[in-house]
């Protein structure tokens, strides 16, 4: 199978049914997302760092809703809260909301090519960030720097790449479809 080229990002073309995702693969990618979030950074890269875990979670909420839904997202968020040392329940709430929004939008999002999916993902990630902002400001935190709005957009830009990587193992084997 060839690497997905630019034509695979356009809406026209035949449709392919993906194999079901394996639960262990979902687990491994979620841990990978958590690790990517925990990488120590500083300065500009810290300000631009997208929430990788939210991206992976969103992908699986859209692609494998049988395995990953609101409950799993909430548990993953609690782990992220511990890793980040932030308030308990902050990421959990945001990720649970993200999972719900994904459940609501998934059928529509899937109809679009990856670049247009990214635009919709940007909105979801931005709502997620706004929810965190609301929680913290109500809790008495000061407003963060304006760079707070950057990570959702960086995350949306990464969406096509993350989608291609995560759906790679689920693509049907070419040999099985040949007669």
């Amino acid at each position, binding site marked *: 199978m060839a690497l997905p080229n630019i034509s695979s990002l356009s809406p026209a073309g035949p449709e392919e049914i993906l194999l079901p995702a394996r639960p262990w693969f979902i687990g491994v990618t979620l841990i990978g997302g958590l690790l990517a979030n*925990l990488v120590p950074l500083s300065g500009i890269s810290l300000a631009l760092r997208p929430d990788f875990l939210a991206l992976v979670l969103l992908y699986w909420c859209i692609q494998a809703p049988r395995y990953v839904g609101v409950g799993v997202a909430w548990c993953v968020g609690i782990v992220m809260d511990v890793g980040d040392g932030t308030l308990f329940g902050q990421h959990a709430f945001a990720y649970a909301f993200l999972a719900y929004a994904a459940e609501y939008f998934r059928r529509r999002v899937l109809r679009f090519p990856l670049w247009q999916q990214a635009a919709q993902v940007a909105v979801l990630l931005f709502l997620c960030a706004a929810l965190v902002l609301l929680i913290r400001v109500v809790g008495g935190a000061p407003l963060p720097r304006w760079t707070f709005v950057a990570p959702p957009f960086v995350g949306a830009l990464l969406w096509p790449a993350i989608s291609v990587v995560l759906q790679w193992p689920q693509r049907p084997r070419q040999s099985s479809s040949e007669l």
Partner: protein
Amino acid sequence: MHHIPAEPPAFFHRGPSPLTRLAFFGVLSIALLFLDTRYRYLENVRHVAAVVIYPLQRAAQWPGDAIAWVGRYFSSQHALIEENADLKRRVVEQSALAQRVPGVERDNATLRGLLAVRDRYTGAAVAVEVLYYGRDPFTQKVFVSKGSADDIAPGRAVVDAQGVVGQVTRVFPGMSEVTLVTDKDHAVPVKVERSGVRSVMFGAGAGHPPELRFMAPNADIAVGDVLVTSGIDGTYPAGLPVAQVATLERETGQMFARIAAKPLAGVDRSEWLLVLAPSAALPARPEEPADPDAAKKSGKGRRRGN
């Protein structure tokens, strides 16, 4: 090419609806948030969970460490020679100064003995490296490389070569969290070095200079004055430089002057920090007079480190 995920038909029963689940987990989150902000009941849970997640955090540092190691390996010899020359020059410059220190220290000890001043900060300290900056954009925190295994405890003052950086607020086995003086929930008791006027410096969050609140408009303070710790709280040893007064607005119509300070230490730059040993134990606080309001007030205690 379109990819359609494999999924079961929707008419099979799949438990409560997503909205019900969101409502359930949303309420659970809000309850947790409330418990955490308001009562800090969850510190023990966090501690246990932090120990579990610690290997992951260390693993996440590997790529950065490897890149830094490669970078150091290839750092040009020229830079090292330059640095060496610079350091030698500085040693010569400072040795003259250093020779005076023993004499000054002896005089100081005698005078303090005469005044029967309690021995204060004795100088034991642990050098730590900043592992990474806190990812939470709402707070100003760094994580440093040593923790309870090296006898670091919450409430220790953290300084760098120029002045106070912050204080240890949470301790894990292999690392600890330092809240910086610029954090909104952080306050340092200070005094103006020149005039001795006491005040408290409050952090104001990222991107805002810390400020001195509740100073009368006619207080003896001027732009450029150095603020040092007053040692009143028992957390910070007295006499450590903290900040310099950057701007000062005295308006006669206002109750207080508006004073912004600029931290002297490289609060968001220093890579190596020093965690100081606790200063000598203060005598116990005298009993509060029985006051019905006092109990109510203590229940409302805000997060102010220690």
